[in-house]
């Protein structure tokens, strides 16, 4: 094996790692720093990598930057929770508010490919009405996007990732067949199914971005269960092994271990490139357009860090909304013990899902929706869950004896946008000398009512599924969105429907930050769909000379 991916960049000298072959390399085009490329993209996660791929496939000159390392999954992803923390963003952030969030593992990534390298592969579409939740459902804010257009893009992304899913999806308008057949359910998923059927609600095998049949060099999923620690077989279809190889083939350059610290703006108020730290020094890449795709904390942080005398409150911030309306998803759970052996560590962690409470508006004392899924926590995650209900010492070791008999149902719940939930800059600095982010989060009453509803219902569903000794995990969150919302009005949004900044016309934001509302499903499919659409829009604008 060559030098450690975290010690020296791998995207260099005209080549990049071929992550599908042990020790493999593939050619990579390189651009000069003084050549103004068409797009400098900051971040290579679900938004940045998808956009880099599509823009380069359309012939634009693209350089994408990632602060993290370029890993080779086949050789460098251990079957080990602790070691694989190397995929997480572990630079310090400060968390406060009434309900401070936990960061670092399930909601962050610092690697080429971003957090999709360790995502749980759950690939769900938004409910159509959520794009107009204010007009149709009476809460939140409307998106400037039309659901029919989004459903068109969803089907493109599902095909690009060869999503394995059910023949018929129980909710929402008719959709096409998923490209690959659904995975076999494990025992934990069967408990979800049993509970749902007993309570008379729908459920389905989860559409997942891990292949159920061979695809190219990737074998079908081997059900090793370490999905959220990174897939070592490439069965998982992600930014790292789908969008980025495509981007490279189309002529994009990806710079790993390259932390962008500032977007540089000229006197005319236009971006001229980015300053980034790589190989021990600050460097500058010229660009005609800059895209920020650093996810809901790093994106506003970079915009705030790039303040100038002309833009004293940060770039793209005339609305004052950069960093505001930070939204997590509530991720509470009910857990219980089955008489049977479950061994939920086998297979993808969330093989079954119900979106019943996303698509049903009756019987709710709250706005918004939630889904819930079966779970497969590995030992460290599980022990820390037990810690959070106060167990340690003999009590912990005794209850850990039930590990193979536990099943859980965990919600992905829509929290409402609130301006008081925000990303700001702290006084403390990181290793690059840049102020770290302060993440302020509090639930609102509506969030709390939804969580209560979900916990009550999931408890009932567990009991109906045959589970005993049920208890509640009350304080977990997942996914980060908002902080640079899209909209139709420059006064109430940061970017327009094309992810283009209202204030700086050659500055774009393309990641979960642009979500005006967050919905009750995992966001990655929607982020990719928006990025794919954005590339189409950029092409259309360019052809009209409006770029």
């Amino acid at each position, binding site marked *: 094996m060559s030098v450690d991916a975290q010690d020296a960049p791998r995207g260099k000298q005209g080549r990049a790692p071929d992550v599908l072959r042990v020790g493999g390399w593939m050619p990579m085009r390189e651009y000069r720093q003084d050549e103004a490329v068409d797009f400098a993209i900051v971040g290579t996660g679900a938004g940045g990598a998808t956009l880099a791929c599509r823009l380069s496939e359309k012939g634009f000159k693209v350089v994408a930057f990632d602060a993290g390392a370029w890993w080779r999954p086949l050789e460098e992803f251990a079957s080990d929770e602790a070691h694989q923390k190397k995929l997480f963003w572990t630079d310090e952030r400060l968390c406060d508010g009434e309900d401070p969030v936990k960061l670092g593992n399930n909601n962050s990534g610092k690697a080429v490919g971003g957090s999709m390298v360790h995502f749980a592969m759950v690939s769900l579409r938004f409910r159509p009405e959520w794009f107009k939740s204010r007009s149709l459902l009476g809460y939140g804010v409307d998106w400037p996007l039309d659901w029919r257009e989004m459903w068109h893009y969803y089907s493109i992304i599902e095909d690009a990732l060869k999503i394995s899913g059910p023949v018929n999806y129980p909710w929402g308008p008719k959709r096409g067949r998923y490209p690959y057949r659904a995975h076999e359910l*494990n025992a934990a998923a069967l408990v979800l199914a049993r509970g749902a059927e007993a309570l008379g609600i729908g459920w389905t095998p989860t559409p997942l971005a891990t292949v159920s049949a061979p695809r190219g060099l990737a074998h079908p999923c081997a059900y090793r269960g370490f999905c959220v620690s990174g897939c070592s*077989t490439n069965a998982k279809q992600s930014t790292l092994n789908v969008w980025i190889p495509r981007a490279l083939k189309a002529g994009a350059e990806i710079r790993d271990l390259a932390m962008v610290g500032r977007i540089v703006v000229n006197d005319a108020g236009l971006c001229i490139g980015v300053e980034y730290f790589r190989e021990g020094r600050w460097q500058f890449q010229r660009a005609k357009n800059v895209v920020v795709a650093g996810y809901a904390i790093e994106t506003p942080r970079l915009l705030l860090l790039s303040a100038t005398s002309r833009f004293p409150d940060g770039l793209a911030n005339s609305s004052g909304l950069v960093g505001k309306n930070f939204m997590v998803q509530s991720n509470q759970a009910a857990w219980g013990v089955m008489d049977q*052996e479950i061994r939920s560590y086998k297979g993808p962690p969330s093989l079954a899902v119900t979106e019943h409470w996303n698509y049903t508006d009756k019987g709710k004392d709250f706005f918004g929706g939630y889904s819930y899924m079966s779970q497969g926590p590995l030992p460290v995650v599980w022990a820390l869950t037990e810690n959070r209900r106060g167990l340690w010492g003999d009590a912990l070791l005794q209850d850990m004896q039930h590990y193979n008999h536990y099943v859980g149902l965990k919600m992905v719940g829509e929290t409402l946008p609130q301006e008081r939930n925000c990303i700001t800059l702290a006084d403390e600095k990181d290793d690059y000398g840049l102020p770290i982010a302060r993440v302020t989060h509090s639930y609102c009453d509506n969030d709390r009512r939804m969580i209560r509803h979900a916990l009550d219902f999931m408890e009932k569903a567990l009991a109906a599924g045959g589970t005993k000794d049920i208890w509640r995990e009350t304080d977990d969150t997942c996914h980060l969105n908002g902080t640079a919302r899209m909209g139709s009005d420059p006064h109430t949004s940061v970017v327009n429907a094309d992810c283009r900044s209202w204030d700086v016309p050659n500055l774009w934001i393309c990641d979960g930050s642009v979500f005006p509302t967050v919905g009750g499903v995992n966001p990655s499919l929607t982020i990719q769909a928006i990025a794919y659409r954005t590339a189409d829009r950029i092409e259309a604008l360019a052809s009209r000379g409006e770029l």
Partner: protein
Amino acid sequence: MNPYTSRYPGYDVLSKRDTPSWDAVTRKVIEQRMATPSEPSFLDVVRWRALEALCACIVPQPSDRPQAPLAGMVDMRLKKNAGDGFRYARLPPLREAWLIGLHALDEESKALHELSFASIEHAAQNTLLSRMQHGELSGAHWQGMDAQLFFTQRVLPDICGAYYSHPYAWNEIGFGGPASPRGYVRMYYDRRDPWEAVEAKPGKEQQALKENRRVR
């Protein structure tokens, strides 16, 4: 003394080390972890003694087998200053929190028993920790750090996170352990692959012991 009766007698996840369930990179990282020295490389000797005693309370490992080097694993992490990617604004950074917390634990113990935390009875240690867990400890020696938050956000996750990343813990709970490239085949209720731990049903402990010794 053993705090529980194992459901998986004789199961040793390390017996799979040379099977298709362990690839080269996994063998390497687990070997390194198991070789963590049981001596301090970051903490001073006084705090190290407190940490060892604290680990023995949080995870009382069975005495009839080798011990996972929990204090060494926590100390190694402090040496690397390997943070989580966030901290509650009311807590100081990783190293500072542990330096303050371990010193304060000794001070609490001395105030009550005139002995350091490592030197008092196990039951007294647990009582003190229970008071920390329930927010009943405070004072100048905590240097403004919230003792309860230190317990819930640092002590428990750091020590338990270390323990459940160690193969000895996987043996106890019947976790399959590393699984690449072989993975698993049998997904249904009450089904196990031949390379998974056998659970002892009441009265069948000897049979489980025998079968677990064959797990590869």
